[in-house]
């Protein structure tokens, strides 16, 4: 896609739906926008059928705002709740069969590189915990071992939400769900460690109750995936239906879970640090100035 995609064809302007006109006139394409400007530009994400108050919806909303070049981004998804929203955005979306998403994204990102050369075309996979850590596990891991250059985002609601409450590998031990009535017997999978072992250049955990942090990790992950290698973000995105969280308590729950098992963590490989610093002017990874030598106590 290019910026021409979001222009009116001559003479059609007044026949276009309002949402499209807003997108052309006040959308974020080709501009630098940030979460602090939310509410004053037309967002790429449109209306969709995900549940009221779903934290996954909020995360997807923030993630799409954070894409560094939305006009050059293609999202890939799979079965699960998230695709209901991701597919309703004004950027191309590819629907992989359940679990195929990282295979599809591998082919797509390689194809885009052949076709467009150095011009960055960002591929971002967003899939549920079931799609990523269970059904898609093999393809996810192999894409990382091959260092495929795209971003994988796990929308971790710790359950199969779309199909009514089966346990996933990411469900916590002991959690009782509609279709795990005796409680899960095994530990939550450590996908973060697996991502590091498999060679991802960037691995981060994030919760949606910190919009600026969501923005920052998504940007870094997408930029690093352009040249350095695979990047992985694991986001806690609660399912208020399967975990019976009242919708006005969703942010409180996110805070509790953040403190319990979703503290912010970020791993950036040395190569990725150097790349962010040299290519995109990040200052966070410059060597810290040496601390001034501690004053020697004056013993009188």
């Amino acid at each position, binding site marked *: 896609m290019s910026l021409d995609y979001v222009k009116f064809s001559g003479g059609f302007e007044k026949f276009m739906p309002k949402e499209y006109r807003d997108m052309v006139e006040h959308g974020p394409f080709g501009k630098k926008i940030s979460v*602090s400007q939310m509410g004053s*530009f037309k*967002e790429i994400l449109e*209306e969709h059928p995900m549940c*009221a*108050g779903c934290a996954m919806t909020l995360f997807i909303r*923030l993630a799409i705002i954070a894409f560094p070049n939305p006009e050059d981004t293609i999202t890939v998804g799979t079965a699960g709740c998230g695709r209901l929203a991701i597919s309703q955005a004004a950027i191309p979306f590819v629907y992989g069969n359940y679990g195929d998403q990282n295979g599809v994204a591998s082919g797509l990102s390689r194809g885009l590189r052949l076709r467009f050369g150095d011009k960055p075309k960002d591929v971002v996979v967003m899939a549920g915990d079931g799609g990523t850590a269970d059904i898609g596990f093999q393809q996810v891991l192999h894409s990382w071992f091959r260092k495929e250059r795209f971003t994988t985002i796990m929308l971790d609601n710790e359950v199969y939400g779309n199909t009514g409450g089966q346990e996933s590998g990411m469900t916590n031990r002991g959690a009782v769900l509609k279709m795990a009535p005796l409680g899960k017997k095994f530990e939550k999978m450590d996908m973060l460690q697996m991502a590091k072992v498999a060679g991802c250049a960037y691995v981060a955990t994030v919760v949606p109750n910190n*919009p600026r942090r969501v923005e920052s990790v998504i940007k870094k992950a997408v930029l690093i995936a352009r040249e350095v290698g695979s990047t992985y973000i694991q986001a806690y995105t609660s399912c208020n239906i399967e975990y019976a969280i009242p919708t006005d308590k*969703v*942010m409180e729950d996110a805070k509790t879970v953040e403190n319990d098992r979703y503290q912010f963590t970020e791993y950036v490989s040395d190569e990725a640090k150097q790349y962010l610093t040299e290519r995109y002017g990040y200052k966070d990874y410059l060597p810290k100035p040496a601390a001034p030598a501690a004053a020697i106590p004056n013993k009188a």
Partner: protein
Amino acid sequence: MYLVANIDVEICAAKSCKLCTQYCPEANTILYSEEMGKDKGFKYGSAYVAVDRCKGCAQCVWVCDNMAKNNAIKMIMIDQLPLAAITDNVTYGEKSTVAVLSDPMVVG
């Protein structure tokens, strides 16, 4: 009948922190107008809800009460709205990216 979020312009415009839209799960739903509240002497404008996109989750109420500590948002029945910002009537300023209510519609 169903509930939607309603923002009290006078209470919001006194603070206008823009937190609620960053936490509303729905896109393009809590918008900002730099004009709203100016007639009453407020400087920074107010948030407002495009109610036909609002799913009634009340997360914004929690955010305004607990994070902004401003209590500007209440859930009310759609037919009790004095002015409904039906999305068709919500537009964006011509020259800026500031959202404004072009023609608030009276429901009821």
